[in-house]
């Protein structure tokens, strides 16, 4: 581009103007070429500044104060007290642990099942489009609808799951009040909604693997299973990493499913015993139940920093691994 700028003839309209106008035109021209890209990205960054960056900074500012929603105009400076309080608060560690366990319960089976599903869909199938669309349907369902239906299925006295358990001779389970039962129930909502979506991502990646690799493997005598492990998986590794990153972000922010699963006050506190309160719910409880905006902002920032820490660790790990292999 730079070479073009210097060698291009001056615009026709400026032909009759003096050398000063010529220079001005050249300047404008350079500004055009250099500046236009920035001008084009400005709208996005303006929106980003107004709706992401400013709230982010303002949230940080609030988190250093003692503020009540009823009196947002009265802010008392408390420096990092909210942070030290939060880190010594049992509820925070409980919520963090719940977020991790529900995250593991939902992400690991979800991605494994998605991988298997994608592998099956990758075979030549009659009506493959139907199966692919069917796999994506849960993803198109709203969180609210899905969570509400699952809540009814898991209901203690008249829920279908307890009815089925009773029919095969098991006692009924109080899904909401038992810690692990509740966490599994919530994970099942997440798994149901996201498995198909991840499966389609894997499927797209699998179809990009050249056929001749499988043929070569087959000629070398590799079984289907060996082909899957040695050809398919390495072939879609970047996609796997991508889905892990996405699922981790999703799991950290898990909120709607447990909120609706618990219903009412129990949804906000994540069960009477906080047995499935995630960090997202803790934020909501502090902010929109207790109306302590300062503490809610603190939870938000701690969640943000946790995500950053996780990704820095992940980058360090992958750099260390690639350094070791090369």
């Amino acid at each position, binding site marked *: 581009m730079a070479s073009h700028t210097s060698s291009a003839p001056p615009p*026709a309209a400026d032909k009759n103007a003096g050398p000063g106008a010529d220079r001005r035109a050249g300047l404008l021209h350079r500004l055009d070429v250099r500046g236009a890209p920035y001008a084009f990205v400005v709208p996005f960054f303006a929106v980003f500044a107004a709706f992401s960056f400013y709230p982010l900074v303002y949230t940080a500012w609030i988190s250093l104060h003692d503020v009540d929603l009823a009196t947002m105009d009265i802010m008392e400076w408390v420096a990092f007290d909210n942070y030290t309080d939060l880190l010594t608060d049992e509820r925070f560690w409980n919520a963090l642990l719940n977020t991790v366990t529900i995250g593991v319960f939902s992400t690991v089976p979800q991605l494994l099942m998605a991988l298997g599903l994608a592998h099956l869909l990758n075979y030549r199938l009659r009506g493959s489009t139907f199966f692919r669309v069917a796999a994506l349907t849960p993803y198109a369902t709203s969180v609210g609808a899905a969570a509400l239906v699952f809540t009814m299925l898991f209901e203690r006295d008249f829920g279908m799951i307890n009815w089925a358990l009773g029919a095969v001779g098991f006692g009924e389970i109080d899904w909401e*009040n038992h810690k692990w039962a509740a966490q599994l129930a919530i994970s099942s909502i997440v798994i149901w909604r996201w498995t198909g979506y991840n499966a389609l991502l894997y499927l797209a990646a699998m179809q990009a693997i050249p056929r001749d690799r499988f043929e070569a493997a087959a000629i070398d005598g590799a079984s289907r299973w060996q082909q899957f492990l040695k050809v398919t998986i390495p072939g879609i590794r970047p996609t796997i990493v991508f889905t892990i990153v996405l699922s981790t972000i999703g799991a950290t922010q898990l909120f709607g499913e447990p909120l609706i699963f618990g219903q009412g006050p129990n949804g906000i506190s994540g069960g009477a015993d906080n047995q499935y309160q995630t960090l997202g719910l803790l934020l909501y409880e502090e902010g929109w139940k207790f109306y302590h905006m300062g503490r809610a902002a603190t939870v938000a920032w701690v969640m943000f920093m946790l995500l950053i820490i996780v990704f820095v660790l992940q980058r360090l790990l992958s750099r260390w691994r690639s350094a070791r292999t090369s």
Partner: protein
Amino acid sequence: MKKTRKLMRTRGAAVVSVVTALGLLTACGGESGGTGGGTKDGKTTITMGLFGVMGIKESGILDEYQKQHPNVIIKADIAGDEQTYYTALQTHMTANSGLKDIQGIEIGRAKELLDTRADRFVDLSKLPGTDHFLPWKQSQVTGKDGKVIGVGTDTGPLAVCYRKDYFEQAGLPTDREAVAELWAGDWKKYVEVGKQFKAGYKGGKVAYMDASSGLFNAMIYGDSQQFYDKSGELIYQDNPTITGAWDLASEAAASGLSAKLRQFQAGWDPGLANGTFATAVCPAWMLAHISEKAGPKNSGKWDVAKAPKGASWGGSFLGVMEKSPVKEEAKKLVAWLTAPEQQARIFESLGNFPSSQEALTAPEVVNMKSEYFSGAPIGQIFAAAAEDMPKEQVLGPKDGTIKDIFSQALSLIESSGKSADEAWQTAGERIDKAVG
């Protein structure tokens, strides 16, 4: 030449995008301070912010007011959920923008608004035609300086709803007078009857009550002090009302008298439909919910008996905003909407119980019988409960939140096998977090 035109085009597009960006940024700075109300061309517009089913719009009295006053246009904005409504109201109060001319106030929020935002409300203490309320009702929205920030709409006097068929099978009386006599004067007797019910009932899985939290609420809402004292200090730990209610409710929770349900949450509605419990402490406004969810097949099986002690759970107010350009008209409107005749009509059509003492003697109320509840004279039963309340009731800013915390603590005993002491301690810790 071609290149030039292309460059001109990108230049134009770049300018457009920068302008758009600036426009986006400045658009957020606009002001919207009004209430939406005002007078124009001889017509007065009054805006209202309401929540839930307050009955003002639903019963048709708003339309009637507009018919009587052709120059008045009322725009009522109703939020379904009170929690959502109040959150928005608080942000509007803070910004002093986005408020309506008239705002609904739920009883659980009354004290907080009185403490923090009384200056946003018009003083209604001298509003003509508002001296007909039950004495305790207006005391709930009166500040220390005598300022009144609202006028009462409905209230929630309590009774006990019970299943006659289950009582009969358990060998207990079924007549509502006789049933009320079983526990007259003391909630402890209500729990004793529960033990008799449990021993006597042989028909399968039916619990005595729906939730021990209902019992707890019923016991505390009949006294003049609950979680806070008059100076705004938390006194729940030493208030015999609270400790007494806790002891009895936790005993009921631990002895398996309840169906371990949570009122208004998953499981409670199917519990009503399938009849998994024999009694429920029911404020007047709950009857409509019970008859709807228990369904026509249970019509005539339910009945209503007087509660051991008078108490009121819930209720609302209407306040006028200081910012409103049509204050006088709005004041006239709220006085009319909460007048005895209108309250009686709302009760007749929707079941929201009047907070006006005069309305309690209106024929619509006195003669009101519920067919679904075996023809119980609910007007008289609830009126008696409302009259039985103490003259003054002290509210606190976080009453609603603390009530929820106690409900959850009782559920820890019922469903998670915690001891009463552990649950009490947990409740205390949570209250510290909630108010601190």
